[in-house]
Every structure is written in structure tokens, then in C-alpha cells.
């Protein structure tokens, strides 16, 4: 599974953000999907019409590094009413929000001149940002105000790889079912640099904002409703105070985790049966659950592995170094009638001490992890339990938490279970971990 950064073709095509060993993979993908690009030279009549209708409202958004003057991140924006605001993705302007003194935002005019832009508001959760441009593009685009039909033709626009204005034709595939952020599935190719650009219908009305590509023409758009909410918002951060955006981001992250974890906690946790244990199952519809078992011949033990996680596109992008806002958990079960207890738990220890899913963050973003380890008894079962916590440095009240428990019981089945919560409040972290542990039962 590629990481968020490499699987994220829209943002910051800066080589420093992509590990060298993954570059080859990226190029393969790029070559593979290159024929999917429809450039203005061979446009269908509809695409040609749409392009002419909206090109006056499009602009290339760029975040420049102040010390070198070179670009740190590029994307696309479009002008909407009222007051000439330009909409783009939050991740396009994220370097500015993270280090306001080191960056400035500008838009590139068709004649390649840089027009200064000011950040007005952000929506970290839906990956949107609103800019005020000193000399805005001449036209505006209207936002679609009624739901579209599945299968409708739509056109995504943007400035991929600095190839110039590009239109990509694709199909509208409705809002993704069982998703946390309710994004639109666009069957068409989005590429790096198109982030923040509009996807419009044949009448040139915005249906969504380009945000994510999984490759193979499976792309995602932020529904236009969230753009409307952002534009209509009454309270905005003070423009002169860049720190206000960090606070705003923090507040939005806290509200977001409060909402989705609160929803999980509001119901009894669903459980599944796993080798004599009842363990937490699919906690929320947007979690994707997978399973696997060992088949090696002659093995003196059998393992089962059950894991649930959010898709990468549901993670929240804070900066090139930090992603947050996700939940995953896994159960590792080892069963053996032939193994003695020492070997059984030795094998179990290997699972207990390693294989922690990493939560991407740098030393400026988070503290080091601190852990608490104890034996815990719950419903007649004994566990060795560890809870590790680290605090966000820029976002007061948010934590990354890793919770792991290994069963220590007089039977020939041992369970190691792990719950990872990125960007949650302390109370939600312990509440969910507690409910998680309490829902584990031995059924035999």
C-alpha cells in the first residue's frame, strides 16, 4: 500500500517529499496514466465549450519559499462569487499555514506574472482553502445547486506538472458509499498540480474540487456543498494573524475527531469472532476490514490476522511531514496445540513488540511517545496492556495514541490486538481504548 505522500499526486511535486526508492513506482504510474490526459489539442466539442466557458476563472496557485523565491508547492484555484474569492485545496497552501514566515502565497497569471494572494479561511477536514487575490481572474464559476446523476460527464480542470491548462474528461460516479468525508468518485485521471481545480458539468457549473487520485482513473473530488459552507462561513480567522490559521486547523481537527469517534462511542462496539475470542469488528462503515491466515506446511502454530483501517484518502493532510485524523486496528491470533507455552508466548512477543503502524509526524509536530504498561484483568481475561501517547506540539489538545494488548490466559490461543488513533483528544483516546478492551471476550 503506498503511503499518503506518494499516493497523492496532486500536491507539492517537490522531489524532497518523495522517497527516492518510491520514485520508480511513481514514474511507472505516471507513464501508465499519461494517455488518460486529454489536452486541449484534441478536445471533444463539450470539453472545448466547457474550457472556453471557465478558463477565465482558473488560476494556478503557488506557494513560494521566501528565502529562495522558488516554488514550494503548486496547485490550481478557481474564482467564485462573492467578492472574488479563489477556492483551492488546503494541502496546496499547507506550507504557508505551517511556516507562515517562510512562505508566501501567490497566483500565476496567464502571462506568468505572480499576483500576491492572501489566505482567508481554511477547512482542514475537507481539504479546502479560500484565498483573496489582489488582481483576481476576470470570470467566476457558478456552483452547482442540485445533485448530479450518476454517469454524467464531468470535466476536471487544472495545471498538472506545469503542462499548462488541462481539461480531463471523466464520469460522475456519485458520492462514495461508506466514506468518512463523503467525496465524489470521479472516473478520470487527476494529476499532480490539478489539486484545487474545479470539476464541472457540461454547463460549466462546479460539482466538486479535485483532491485525490488513486491512479487508474479512480479519482476523488470534494463535493461542492463543502465549498458553499466555507464561502458562507461567518467567523473567519484574522488575516493578519497567521497563527490564527493553526488555531483554526486545531479547532477543526478537534471537532472532526469529536464527531467521528463520538459516533463510534455512541453505539455498542460491533464484535466479530476470531478463534474463540470475540474481538472488536468493523467499528464504522468507512473502515475497510481485511483478513489473512497462515498456511505454511509443517508449522507448529496457526496465525490469523484481522485488520481494519481507513483508506489513505480519508487521512487528514497537515503538512508534508504530518498526516493525522485516522483510526486503525488489528488483531493477531496465534493458536497451537503442539507448542509449549514458552514458545507460544515467544512467538507472541514478536508480534507484541513490533509491527506498529507508523503515524507520520516530525520532531516539530509531536513529542516522543511515552507509554504505560500494566497487567489488566477484564471479564475474566488477563492482558498485558500498553498505552502510548504523544502530544501535538502545534495543536493543543490533540494526541496520537497507540494501544496494544496481549492476552495471557491458560489456553492454547494467544491474541495480540492493536488500536491506533491519530489526532484524537485524550478523553476520546482513553474512552475508545477502554471500550475496545472491554469488548474482548473469550467464548470457548
Amino acid at each position: 500500500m503506498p503511503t499518503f505522500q506518494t499516493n497523492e499526486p496532486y500536491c507539492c511535486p517537490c522531489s524532497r517529499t518523495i522517497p527516492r526508492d518510491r520514485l520508480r513506482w511513481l514514474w511507472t504510474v505516471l507513464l501508465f496514466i499519461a494517455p488518460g490526459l486529454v489536452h486541449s489539442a484534441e478536445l471533444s466539442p463539450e470539453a472545448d465549450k466547457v474550457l472556453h466557458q471557465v478558463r477565465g476563472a482558473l488560476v494556478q496557485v503557488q506557494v513560494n519559499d521566501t528565502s529562495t523565491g522558488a516554488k514550494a508547492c503548486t496547485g490550481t484555484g478557481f474564482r467564485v462569487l462573492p467578492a472574488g474569492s479563489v477556492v483551492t485545496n488546503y494541502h496546496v497552501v499547507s506550507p504557508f499555514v505551517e511556516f507562515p514566515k517562510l512562505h508566501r502565497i501567490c497566483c500565476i497569471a496567464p502571462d506568468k506574472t505572480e499576483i500576491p494572494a492572501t489566505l482567508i479561511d481554511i477547512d482542514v477536514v475537507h481539504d479546502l482553502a479560500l484565498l483573496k487575490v489582489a488582481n483576481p481572474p476576470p470570470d467566476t464559476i457558478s456552483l452547482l445547486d442540485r445533485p448530479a446523476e450518476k454517469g454524467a460527464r464531468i470535466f476536471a480542470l487544472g495545471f498538472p506538472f506545469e503542462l499548462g491548462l488541462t481539461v480531463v474528461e471523466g464520469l460522475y460516479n456519485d458520492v462514495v458509499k461508506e466514506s468518512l468525508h463523503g467525496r465524489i468518485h470521479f472516473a478520470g485521471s487527476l494529476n499532480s498540480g490539478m489539486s484545487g481545480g474545479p470539476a464541472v458539468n457540461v454547463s460549466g457549473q462546479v460539482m466538486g474540487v479535485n483532491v485525490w487520485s488513486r491512479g487508474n482513473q479512480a479519482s476523488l473530488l470534494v463535493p461542492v456543498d463543502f465549498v458553499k459552507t466555507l464561502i458562507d462561513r461567518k467567523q473567519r480567522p484574522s488575516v493578519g494573524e497567521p497563527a490564527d490559521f493553526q488555531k483554526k486547523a486545531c479547532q477543526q481537527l478537534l471537532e472532526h475527531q469529536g464527531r467521528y469517534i463520538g459516533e463510534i462511542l455512541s453505539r455498542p462496539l460491533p464484535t466479530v469472532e476470531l478463534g474463540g475470542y470475540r474481538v472488536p469488528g468493523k467499528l464504522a462503515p468507512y473502515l475497510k476490514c481485511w483478513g489473512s491466515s497462515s498456511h505454511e506446511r509443517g508449522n507448529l502454530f496457526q496465525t490469523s490476522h484481522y485488520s481494519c483501517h481507513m483508506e489513505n484518502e480519508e487521512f487528514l493532510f497537515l503538512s508534508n511531514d504530518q498526516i493525522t485524523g485516522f483510526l486503525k486496528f488489528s488483531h493477531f491470533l496465534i493458536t497451537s496445540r503442539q507448542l509449549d507455552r514458552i514458545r507460544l508466548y515467544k512467538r507472541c512477543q514478536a508480534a507484541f513488540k513490533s509491527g506498529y503502524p507508523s503515524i507520520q509526524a516530525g520532531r516539530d509536530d509531536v513529542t516522543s511517545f511515552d507509554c504505560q504498561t500494566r497487567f489488566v484483568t477484564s471479564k475474566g481475561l488477563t492482558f498485558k496492556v500498553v498505552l502510548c501517547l504523544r502530544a501535538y506540539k502545534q495543536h493543543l489538545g490533540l494526541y496520537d495514541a497507540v494501544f496494544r494488548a496481549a492476552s495471557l490466559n491458560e489456553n492454547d490461543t494467544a491474541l495480540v490486538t492493536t488500536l491506533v488513533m491519530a489526532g484524537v483528544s485524550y478523553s476520546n483516546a482513553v474512552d475508545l481504548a477502554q471500550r475496545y478492551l472491554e469488548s474482548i471476550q473469550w467464548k470457548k
Partner: protein
Amino acid sequence: MEEVIYLEVLDRFDRVKERVRLSSFPVEVGRAYSNHVILDDRYVSPCHLRIVRGSDGQIVAEDLSSRNGLFLMPEGTRVRTTPLGLNTQLRIGRTLLRLRTRDCPVDEAEREGIGLDLQERFVNSGRVQAATLTAVIALIGTHQYLGVYNENQFWNVLLDGMPQMLMATLVYLSFWCFLGIIFVRRLRFRAHLTIFCTLFLLSHLSSWLEALLSFNCVSDLWLKGVDIVSILFVFSLGLFAHLWTSTQARPAHLWLLAILIAGGMSAKEGLEAIQSRWDFSQTLRFSDALLPPVCRVAPGVSVQDFFRDARTLKDRVDQDRASASR
């Protein structure tokens, strides 16, 4: 009473090799059989030195036109003749000579030191040697057996790494035996093997202890402490025992050397541990050992208590955040 004078022949480590009573003068010293004192030193001439007694009773050494000459030590000045006193030391070739009389004081006997005798008996006893070796072989066998997780790979896993382990042990032992040949002219292979086996058992014992502590949720800081103390103990003991067996140095000096080296190693470990604690890290540091439930000594707490106690964990993390932002 008649004056008794000894000529002492020393090697270059100041150890007395030979003691010759001088009953009449002159005394001739050299490599030839015609001499009174015959020296097996290839840098000494056949007729190298004559010691005479003057009419005033003064003893004088004279160089007999030797090839390499006569030197007054410790200054190292070359002389033709020199009066000899009790404090005079001569060098011819690689040999040191000095005079001693009946009145020369000697030091009090050194104390034997507690346990040295026991150690000698321990490492030289055939029974102990056999027992430690058997224990080590049994331990390695068990350890390898505990790595077998597939019945088709039983022997592969059981014998995995054995040749390397054997080679490493032989290299280790030959180092100490080599040292023994240099300093005491004896191999003492079995003594070194017994010391090695004892150390092996002790270090395994300490790793079991650590595993037991780690399983019982002792914090990793304490575990590091136990680790450092056990390195200090096992390493200094082993170093001392090996050095004691293969050299003739004084036990106090050997202990000092062993403790200094072991102390240096554990200090390095400790510093690394402190540094890694201060550095930013993505890793989760906790006591992660798992053993069968029967090894559990620490009491279990209820789920509510565990999460109530987590409040102190949060406070620590918050403090960390606050100190970082300062």
C-alpha cells in the same frame, strides 16, 4: 660474621632469574663456560664483565672490552668501570645485575586475597569444568529448540549458527590462551573454557532476569539500569578471571583494570540510553517481553484503574510538550 654477597640476575621485567652467592673475587660474568656466572643472553659477550674487590673493600665492576658494553641503570650511561653498591644496577646485553647483602630489606608477604584460592580451585576442578560445559551445551540446545516453529525445519533450526558459534568461542579462547603463553608460558585451555562457560551462564541468567522484569512491566529505565549493572558485573568478573589465569600481575591491579574496562563499557551504554531518551523518537518504548502467564508476579489492575492511571501518562506527555515549546 663473614659478609655474604649475592649477585642477582634479573630479566627485563625486573624479576629475579638467578641468585649467585659471591664467595671469592674476582668474579667473571659472560656467556662462555669459563665464567663464574654464565648468562644465556645472546647480547652478552663470552667474557663480558669482571667484578673485583679493591684493597679498600670496594667492589668494582669492569667491562672486559665487550662488544655491547656495560651500562649503569637506570640512567643508561655506558661505563668502563664502576663501583658497585647496593643501589647500583648494571645492564649487560638484555640482562640486569645487582648486588644484595644479608641486610637487604624485603617486603612483607602479600595477602592472598579473598576468593582467589577458591577461583583457582573452581577453574581447575575437573568436576566444575565438566558441569559448566554440560550446562552451556544444554542451555544452547534449549535455546535453539525454543526457536523451532516448524516440524520440517527441526534440525535446521536446532543447528542453526552452531559452526559460527563454535568458531567464535575458539577464537575467543585462543586469544586468552595466547596471552597465557606469553605471560606464564602455559595454555590453560580448560581453565579459560570454564571461565567462558561460567560467564555464558551468568549472562544468560541476567538476560532471563531482564526478561522476567520486563514481562512484569518494570519500566524500561529500570531495565536499562539492571542491564548496565549486569554488564559491569559479568564483564569485570570475566575479564579479571581470564587475566588472572593468563598473567602473573597482581590481583588488585587486575581488578582495577577489569573494573575500569567494564565501567567504560557500561558508561557508554548508559550515555547512549540517556541520549536516546532525550532525542526525538518515533519508537514506542515499553517493557515488551511476553512470557507464559505462570511467570506473572505483578498484580493485575482493573480496566478502569488502568485508564484512570493513564492520566499521569497524559500529564507527562503534556509536560514534555510544554518544555519543548519553551
